[in-house]
């Protein structure tokens, strides 16, 4: 679970124009300034949460891992191993690795948690609810078979709603590469859904 040591450079170092002084915020984080911590948390938590939820489909787990990502941020900054310029990129990169750690830890298919996580969906009847769950189950099962990069690009594009450009910056790829990755991810997802349906 030690993401600080395993974070690749291709994620966390994207330089996104933020419009605020990240250096002073990083200094505030290093000093464990509660006000700065609160500001950073409020700004990025929803994006981190949505990304993790998209990857795992479990609200409770997404909540736990999301807050854990911010705890890792504090500890990394304190040890001077945190982000130097791009807090959001670092957070999403750490979230990606935290998800991977979680999946290794539970050693089971994330779609199994999906059944519990979709209980709040508003469906008109029990039959509809079962149909809906099965449909989402098959999609998540198909999604889980994608490569980590493919899962990430879909999570950023459709979980967080990032544009191609923003996704490219976070993943440190060019826009054309993201376009291709996204297309191939969706094509693979469609194939996987068909395979799951035939099983």
């Amino acid at each position, binding site marked *: 679970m030690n993401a600080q040591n395993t974070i690749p450079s291709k994620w966390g170092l994207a330089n996104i124009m933020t419009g605020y002084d990240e250096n002073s915020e990083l200094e505030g984080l290093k000093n*464990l300034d509660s006000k700065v911590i609160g500001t950073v948390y409020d700004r990025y938590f929803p994006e981190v949460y949505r990304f993790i939820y998209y990857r795992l489909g479990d609200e409770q787990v997404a909540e736990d891992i999301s807050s854990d990502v911010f705890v890792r941020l504090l500890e990394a900054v304190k040890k001077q191993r945190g982000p130097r310029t791009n807090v959001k990129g670092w957070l999403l990169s750490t979230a990606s690795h935290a998800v991977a750690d979680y999946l290794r830890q539970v050693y089971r298919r994330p779609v199994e948690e999906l059944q519990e996580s979709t209980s709040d969906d508003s469906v008109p009847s029990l039959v509809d609810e079962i149909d809906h769950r099965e449909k989402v189950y098959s999609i998540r099962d198909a999604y889980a078979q994608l490569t980590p990069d493919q899962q990430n690009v879909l999570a950023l594009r459709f979980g967080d709603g990032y544009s191609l450009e923003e996704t490219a910056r976070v993943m440190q790829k060019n826009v054309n590469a993201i376009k291709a990755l996204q297309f191939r991810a969706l094509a693979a*997802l469609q194939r996987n859904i068909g395979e799951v349906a035939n099983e």
Partner: protein
Amino acid sequence: MNEKLYDAFDVCVKALETGADIEAVLKLYPEMTDELRPVLEALIQAQSLSTKTVSEDTVRRGRARVLQHATLMRESSRRQRKLGFVFRRLAASLALTFVLLLGGTGIVSASAGALPGDNLYPVKRTWETVRLWFVFSPEGREELESEYEQERLDEIDELLGQGREEVIAFYGIVTTQDGEYWLVSGVPVQITAKTQLPAETVSIGAPVTVVGRTNAQGFIEAQMLGVLAPGVSLPPLEPNESTSDKNESNEADDHGENAVLVTPQAADRDSGVTTPQPQVENNNNLQDEQSRTFEFRGVVSSQKDGIWVINGQQVDMSQADIIGNIQNGTFVKLNGYYGLDGRFIVTKIEQRDDNNKNSGSSDNSNNDNRGDEGGQEDNKGDD
């Protein structure tokens, strides 16, 4: 081809975001319908995996957890800083000890008897500093510092005994002032015209620091003498064995059983002394600081609240055995000792009539004018 397909897909996605359906979007690229349709359908499926809202409870719980963790980190950081200071000091002490034990035990032992000017003397002083590092309680530290000051006096005694000329420095209490010859904690000091003295008058009982040079004549030529601030560790007042033995051997012939602790120079000056002279008695029956007692003669000028002024000096009368009717102006003989705070504590005081002024003791037999001068001022060495 692929780039065109990706661009077409991108346009379709944007069209879907505006609310268009797949069939309408596919009409934009009829030649690519077969490739685009499954991917656009997958896109719809992929969008279904997202969550649009993050509940306030989720945000609040996560925030509380993160801030709580920050609080724990702050407390942990404070504890580590505090412990870090202690451990750093401990580690430095242990490292020094290790080095000295492994490589310097013999040297340190050999340096124990070193005197100023000896090659091993710096080792001795360094080891003293190291030992002070290990003492953490203020009381223990003060006691050790006092012990070291006594060691300085012993070194000076040894140097004077050997007739060596070395630069020395020590702390002590002024116990006698006889013209240019003073006694500072029993060490004979010569005040010369070259001696740097403080602006204020140095009184008997004042704690001072002396820097000077020992000489073959058996005293210290003071180069600088300064008054110490309150609270400085001074050597203990009790005579140590070597001092007592030495003085007994030096002085027994002149003064008999009740040996007077004065230097040869002081003894030689007896005939020229015109003011009351303190005498140091070696009385083995007294204890601790009281074992080094002094005898003075002088005139009482003030008697207030247990503090009297005799020969211009304040003395503590709380323990005094008063013999006779003593008033202001009475000529008296007093015995007592210097307390740790430098104050002279009188143990016995008795009235002396003028006829006896000159016969108070053998070493004062030539002080013909003492009675006349005693009430005015003592000779404090402010020459």
